[in-house]
């Protein structure tokens, strides 16, 4: 009981940290984003080293799956990064449409791009786990299909941004796409409960032994902190490019 309460508090704290930090980025200067991001980077490196050691060398083989379950130590954390990225793209897009502050558009772009990065690693690691476990790399299971649609949607979001030159028009259209695209995220999460096909439902920590679940928790936190580090850096880049674009626009209009 106490363990569950602690776990719940830790999860809420991590969600608040992720959303709070990502939204604060929108108001940060490039230098502040760099400094705060560096702290996350150092913590992520330490946690990744620890998690990789625990998952690959310390955790025992699983009774039924053998060692292939070790892929879960990067597969599941990839979905944590994906969810965090798309959630930030969604929230920051709403904030942009409300405030029209360019900082939120940069946060949305960073969230979508990093979310897609983890989406791709999640799909690849899932296929490599599926082959020895299910006998196939890929099947048109609802969970797999909705996840692939999610990746294509956010890849489309990034492509769309590249095609619109006007910064404000691009931010407005991209925000709408991110908000509509996020609708698929809860569908992905609940797909294993709504359509009971090949992909198993989410595991509860109570059904997994401690030597197997602790490396997983370490890697999940490591990927989340890595996500925050990448957010800070991608935001910095988006901000620099945005300022450069506005400067060029100003020069074009005023000729000064």
């Amino acid at each position, binding site marked *: 009981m106490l363990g569950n309460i602690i776990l719940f508090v830790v999860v809420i704290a991590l969600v608040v940290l992720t959303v709070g930090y990502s939204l604060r980025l929108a108001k940060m200067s490039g230098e502040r984003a760099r400094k705060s991001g560096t702290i996350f*980077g150092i913590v992520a*490196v330490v946690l*990744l*080293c620890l998690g*990789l*050691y625990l998952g*690959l*060398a310390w955790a025992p*083989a699983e009774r039924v799956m*053998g*060692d*292939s379950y*070790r*892929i879960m130590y*990067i*597969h599941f954390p*990839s979905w944590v990064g994906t969810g965090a990225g798309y959630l930030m793209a969604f929230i920051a897009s709403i904030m942009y449409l409300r405030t029209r502050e360019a900082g939120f558009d940069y946060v949305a772009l960073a969230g979508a791009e990093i979310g897609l*990065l983890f989406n*791709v*690693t999640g799909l*690849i*690691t899932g296929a*490599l*786990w599926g*082959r*020895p476990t299910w006998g196939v790399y890929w099947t048109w299971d609802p969970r797999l299909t909705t996840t692939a649609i999610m990746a294509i949607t956010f890849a489309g979001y990034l492509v769309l941004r590249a095609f619109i030159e006007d910064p404000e028009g691009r931010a407005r259209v991209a925000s709408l796409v991110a908000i509509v695209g996020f609708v698929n995220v809860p569908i992905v999460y609940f797909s294993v409960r709504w359509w009971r096909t090949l992909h198993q439902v989410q595991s509860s920590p109570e059904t997994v032994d401690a030597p197997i679940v602790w490396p997983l928790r370490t890697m999940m936190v490591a990927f989340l902190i*890595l996500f925050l580090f*990448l957010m800070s*850096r*991608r935001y*910095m*880049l988006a901000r*620099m*490019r945005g*300022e*450069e674009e506005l*400067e060029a626009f100003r020069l074009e209009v005023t000729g000064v």
Partner: protein
Amino acid sequence: MSKTGLVAVLLGLASIALVFVVTPGMRDAGFIVRAYVITAVIVAGYTWSLARRIAQAEKGRADRESVQ
């Protein structure tokens, strides 16, 4: 290469080395190795590319400021 890019590449290589050291003898070792190596390459590659793009953008900004 920037400090961030260097750390990303070193961490990626270290994780690949660790996988090759600990997986021999494991059941389905080939799938585990492929999953970890591909993930390490994608994440380290993206981080390195991000660091490089930031360094280029910073250099461009510094060049523009020096011209002004």
